[in-house]
């Protein structure tokens, strides 16, 4: 028979659900494709990303999947893989100027942001003041989200009165949104550019008894955000990426590339709006949800 193929995957952070979901996708994908998979988290440490890439390569992996911490610094691992003649596939983050990854499986961040903006307009038909949280480290992917959102609400009477830098955690967001609620007593909404901060916003809004007044929209709908949407909290909705599908597809394209089969160089998964009406479907099955609302059939094997 054929030699077993082994690949390595380097997701970012074991304590963030987005990545653990992605890892499930990697694992299921590897099972389907019949390859060996080794997963090592980079723990948000760019140096680790490079070290692990090299380690996988020297241990005989035929391909490496990385979820880049940074769209520029990923150049390092890509070069390493290229020099060793190995395939490298990226998930979620598109590199700044593509130095030659085998394939990229990502989300369309701009239209995701746009979808969130449109949802905000729908939820606040009369407009109003809103604030937006930003990740304190800047990147193209993040900018796409902000721009998509801003472009969508441009011309409406929704006004972004403040943008808040957060470190991506719930706590930091909670601490920073709380004074904002005093500063803008007539605040109508918050757009959170990440999932964890949305929970932080929810906590702040709840504590200030403003959940009837403030509409929170989240970019990313992980299980806790989904639960909050379902229960009718101040998080009224959001847009979701599909980390599970992303992971699955990444493995599939990697293996195809290794086997010399045809593969997709760029997969841009849609980012889809989620509201109370359809959130249960998302909770039940990401892939089904994607198929139903995004017309993307994972099982069909793109």
């Amino acid at each position, binding site marked *: 028979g054929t030699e077993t193929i082994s690949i390595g995957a380097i997701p970012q952070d074991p304590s963030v659900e987005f990545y653990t979901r992605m890892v499930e996708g990697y694992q299921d994908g590897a099972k389907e494709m019949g390859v060996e998979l080794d997963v090592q988290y980079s723990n948000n440490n760019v140096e680790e990303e490079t070290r692990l890439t090299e380690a996988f390569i020297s241990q005989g992996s035929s391909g490496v999947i990385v979820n880049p911490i940074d769209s520029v610094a990923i150049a390092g691992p890509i070069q390493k893989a290229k020099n060793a003649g190995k395939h490298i596939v990226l998930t979620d983050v598109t590199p700044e100027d593509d130095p030659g990854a085998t394939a990229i499986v990502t989300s369309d961040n701009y239209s995701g942001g746009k979808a969130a903006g449109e949802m905000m307009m729908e939820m606040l038909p009369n407009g109003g003041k809103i604030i937006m949280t930003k990740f304190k480290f800047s990147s193209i992917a993040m900018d796409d989200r902000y721009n998509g959102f801003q472009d969508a609400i441009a011309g409406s009477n929704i006004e972004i009165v403040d943008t808040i830098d957060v470190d991506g955690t719930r706590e930091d967001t909670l601490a920073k949104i709380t004074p*904002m609620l005093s500063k803008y007593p007539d605040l109508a909404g918050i757009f959170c550019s990440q999932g964890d901060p949305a*929970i932080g916003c929810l906590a702040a809004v709840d*504590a200030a008894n403003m959940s009837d007044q403030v509409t929170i929209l989240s970019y990313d709908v992980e299980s806790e955000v989904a639960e909050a949407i379902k229960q009718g909290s101040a998080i009224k909705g959001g847009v979701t990426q599909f980390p599970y599908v992303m992971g699955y597809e990444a493995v599939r394209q990697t293996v195809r590339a290794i086997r010399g089969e045809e593969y997709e160089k760029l997969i841009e998964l849609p980012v889809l709006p989620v509201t109370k009406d359809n959130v249960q479907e998302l909770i039940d099955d990401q892939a089904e949800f994607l198929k139903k609302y995004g017309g993307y059939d994972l099982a069909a094997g793109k």
Partner: protein
Amino acid sequence: MNNNKIGGTTLWQRLRSNLSQYAGVLAALVVLIVVATIFKPVFLSGDNIVNMIVNSTTIGLAAFGMTFVILTGGIDLSVGALAALTGVFAADLLGRGVPMGVVIPLGIIAGALVGMGVGAIIAKTNIPPFIVTLGLTNIYSGLAIAYNDGYPVPIALEDPFTVLGNGKILGIPTPILVLIAAFIICYIILNKTNVGRNVFIIGGNKEAARLSGISVTKTTMFSFAIHCALVALAGMILASRLYSGLPSAGKNMEMNAITAVVLGGTSMTGGDGNIIGTVIGVLLLQVLLNVMTIFSFPAFLQSLVQGVIVIVAVLYDYLRKKKI
């Protein structure tokens, strides 16, 4: 007689000497408040003030505990990781149906036990506490991640446990009540009890303490036990406020707690300071954070200001000690 010069001081004298002790921080606090209020009157709104206090709960509890630890001459850099671990632990128990009436005391007791262990290691071996606790950070984090394979452990929005962080009792937010209760307990322990006195003495001079029949090991264990119990409580409040036990929670908590303690005039070398100072330090820090946010300081500037504050606080402590 009270007038007797050597005997007790009058209340007024004591108040004055107390105020002068905090002159620097209090002045900074007043200036901050005045400036903030002039430019953004919203700063002084009732809402904002209540919010500030609620937000200072977790840092406040950790800072109270840290006061004990620093008074003994120690330090703890693992606060955030322990808080996260406790949060995950509590959330998990709640998920298994254990009622909050059991979970909260259990969390606190677990914290105290961990603290006793840490205190014992530090007192027995003379390893620098900052390195022991730096190592512990990794261990706690590892355990917190392992607990639920890295997933946050959700707490149902309707679980009564969420009252701990988000609810009100008699119109007062629960965290504020917890903070006040913790303050009173810490104040009484440090100022009225025998064991509290030992904390100051071993921080002042371990050798003299030992020769006076005070057990340095037991007192260090006690301090760390109180500290870790408070950190555990802070971790649970955090979990309650965030509706989940998060392995990555508690970022920067130790840094903030240490800053508050040092701002409050407790000496890094131990033996000198008190919990009232820490309260002032926590308030100053919180007001500062609040003001920076209200004025929309960018992230980098907030980070910078915090770093400068820490260094200024220890420099101030150093200059003050030099004067003594």
